[in-house]
């Protein structure tokens, strides 16, 4: 088993991601964000369907920090030294793996449904 296979296996063990975690990661995929902007972004992306509480958000951030999927840093332009979060290389890799998994399922589902209809 190669190193790549092993890391891929590690990633696959953590998938599929829950919707809130996926949305948090997607929110951080574009640019670093602080807590409040993540909450608002998640709500916007899900068209108001997923509204996270502060407790839920920080629980998820905690786990993602522990797993090294995201990292925390102090915003430079913030007057009170506000903390912000960004994806790590590992987090981005894992997010990509999840997106690939979803693409595969969507493709498969489209094919199966189309076959059934014809």
């Amino acid at each position, binding site marked *: 088993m190669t190193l790549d296979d092993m890391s891929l296996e590690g990633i696959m063990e953590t998938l599929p991601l829950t919707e809130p975690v996926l949305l948090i990661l997607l929110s951080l995929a574009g640019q670093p964000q602080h*807590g*409040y902007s993540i*909450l608002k972004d998640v709500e916007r992306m899900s068209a108001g369907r997923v*509204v*996270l*509480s*502060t*407790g*839920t*958000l*920080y*629980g998820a*951030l*905690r786990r993602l920090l522990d797993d090294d999927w995201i990292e925390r840093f102090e915003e430079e332009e913030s007057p009170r030294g*506000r*903390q912000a979060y960004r994806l790590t290389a590992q987090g981005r890799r894992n997010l990509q793996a999840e997106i690939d998994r979803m693409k595969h399922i969507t493709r498969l589902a489209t094919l199966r449904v189309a076959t059934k209809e014809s």
Partner: protein
Amino acid sequence: MLAVYQRLLRLYPAEHRKFFGEEMLAVLREESDENADKRLFTRSRFFVREIAGLVTGALREHFRVWLEIQEELSFVTGRVAMRNGFRFPKTTIVFMTLILACVVTAIKRGEDIAASVPNVNPPLPIHIQPVHSILLGGIPLLFAFFYAAGLIGWAILFALRRSGVHRLADMSGERQ
């Protein structure tokens, strides 16, 4: 609202509070400001959601700390340590239930046989309660009593920060 939230933040483990406490309060302040001029229903929903999220989040964090301590213990003391996994085989519950059902059925059958052969044994002068009725009535009651007593005791220790979780957390803090 912020005062309530600040108090409820104490439910979290100290380490989490130190790391995220101020940030969580800042986020909630921004959210409260945003909701201030909204309808009562929207504000109430926001309040309930935040409080529920905070309580469940605190429970989850305590559970996480507890799991970490278990892992550390199993690492330090090797084989005799408590493990993270649930070691009680689930099939045991099925077998125990089956055995109990068999015992109760056997007692019932015995009673039926005794009843079908009248006057063989002279009636006893005192009334003896059947064993299974004592078992079925008494054991769950005793279990519920001791379970409730244990739960209350644990809640008191937890409130006083003297529970096993807190002591082990202190120990691991000292070791670090």
